[in-house]
């Protein structure tokens, strides 16, 4: 089993305002999806905290409180560079002021990254990413997810 290495370049990409998608599942293995707005990576501990808006993530929160199994995909709209990490939730808390500032910064970078898609910025400003929850989780494995041959290949795993 190789060690999951979070290089500075990788962490910079993960925190750079790329799109964030959270996947979870319930006890009967029914999956649920939610978009997240902001992430903070703790490379030495191999943990991450991802922020989901309370609206629209009720099922996701229920699933994660129940079994903790989480998948998080990072994807950059401009070149489709994508990465998926999987892991187990350590804690779920309401976001605090400091985390709100991370979310604000994320949201503005994420919106800028979508300008080329032609989406009106005024429309994006309607998104209510507060109130939100911070999902702290332990990273267990990481997969290259850029579309094409080899998508889904494990880049590294850890225990």
């Amino acid at each position, binding site marked *: 089993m190789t060690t999951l290495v979070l290089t500075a370049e990788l962490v910079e990409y993960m925190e750079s305002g790329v799109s964030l*998608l959270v*996947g979870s599942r319930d006890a009967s293995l029914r*999956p649920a999806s939610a978009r997240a707005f902001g992430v903070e990576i703790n490379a030495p501990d191999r943990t991450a905290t991802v922020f989901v808006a309370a*609206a629209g993530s009720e099922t996701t929160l229920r699933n994660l409180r129940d079994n903790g199994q989480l998948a998080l995909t990072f994807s950059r709209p401009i070149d489709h560079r994508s990465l998926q990490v999987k892991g187990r939730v350590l804690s779920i808390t309401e976001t605090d002021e400091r985390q709100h500032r991370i979310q604000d910064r994320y949201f503005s970078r994420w919106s800028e990254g979508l300008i080329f898609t032609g*989406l009106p910025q005024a*429309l994006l400003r309607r998104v209510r990413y507060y109130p939100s929850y911070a999902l702290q989780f332990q990273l267990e494995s990481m997969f290259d997810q*850029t579309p094409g041959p080899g*998508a889904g290949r494990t880049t590294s795993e850890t225990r």
Partner: protein
Amino acid sequence: MIALADLQRCFAGVIPSIITTCSRSGVPNVTYLSQIFRVDERRIALSCQFFNKTKQNVAENPFANVELIDPLTFQTYDLDLRYAHSEISGPLFEKMATRIQAIASHTGMLGVFKLLSADVYEVLAIREVEGLLGPPTADNEADSEEAPMSLRTELRALSVVTERLRHATDLDGLLSTLLDALRDELSFEHAMLLLPDETGKRLVSLASRGYGETGIGAEVLVGDGLIGTVALTQQTIRISNVSASLDYGRAIGRKAQDHGAGAPAAEIPLPGLPDAQSQLAIPLLAHGRLAGVLAVESKSQLAFEEWHETFLDVIGHQLAIALENMMLRAEAEEAQAVTQTALPTGPAKEARVLRLCFYRNDDCVFVDDEYLIRNLPGRILWKILRSFVDSSRAEFSNRELRLDPTLGLPPVKDNLESRLILLRKRLEQKCPELRLVPKCRGQFRLETSCTLELTEKDSA
């Protein structure tokens, strides 16, 4: 209750949709979807281009969840799905494969990037995600959608277009009438009609609106890009977010190179608008034979919806039949026509000299060292010019062209009329000193006030 038909805009791919699945051992997987297609009121199909975790998971555990976003309102929808089956042939597969093939072809990725299967899912529930969007503000009110055309307006427009097609008396008139009607009745500002050339390997644009002079004579190889793919597969293609679709193809290209594939082939320039965001191209089919391709474009994303496709399919079918009938009728009428009228005055003297050169290796005609036309229209022009200079003949019939073995026209349904339209239009644009003036049906006259100097060469 939200219907799948109400979510049409979400399927256009402007904002990529998310799919979450889960393995039998309980590990979730979340990823983007490249293409969603509504099969009917209860089912959708997802494109599978690569064997991946999603595919593996639904084989173990059929449940999936998809999140969709309406690109005009940003409203999010949550769909619970159950995987039903995969199709690797048939109409649904062909429809989805064609669209992917067009994108792959345009980005030089044919073969690397193709549809493996159309994966059909049953939709178990559709929920509207509440509370994620604040109320509209003054600055985004203007972005709200325009009222779609009502069914009555569509049907009225269809009847007007049909009526106008019926009154066309020749091919040129038919093509112009159609494009005018599409612009006037349905606001298709950028439209192009392409017909196959004599080899069947290439399409040539014979009439267009909204492209200026460049619209006529544009060529597309069958199999290349959007229009070429429509011709090859005889399937309609609608792309609502051209730049994003092409970016997706390019991303796969880079990835394939990382995995040892060769450099992608050169990108094929899209004929038409450089900044088109929506494209819709339909094959014109009469009795299973490709009579041409009708392509419309817009600079707006989401300009064309499902009903536009259906609507143009209906019009395209009528047009294809009209094209076929017109060609058959032209051939029958020409068979009875009398020709061989001598030129009364002969070529004009002491006028400007036009130097024309014919290159035998590719049947190409140059005028004053500038490219004019090639292939069959080039051979036709040269035959006419030779007769004009050598025998002082100015009047010609379609029938004699058809019977001339040196031109190499097929015995029936030869598209001669369309070649003559192309030739006439190229002359109008590039060499107005030479005019092919239609007379009665199946006959035309060469008019010029210039002195013609003809030379022939084997190659350039």
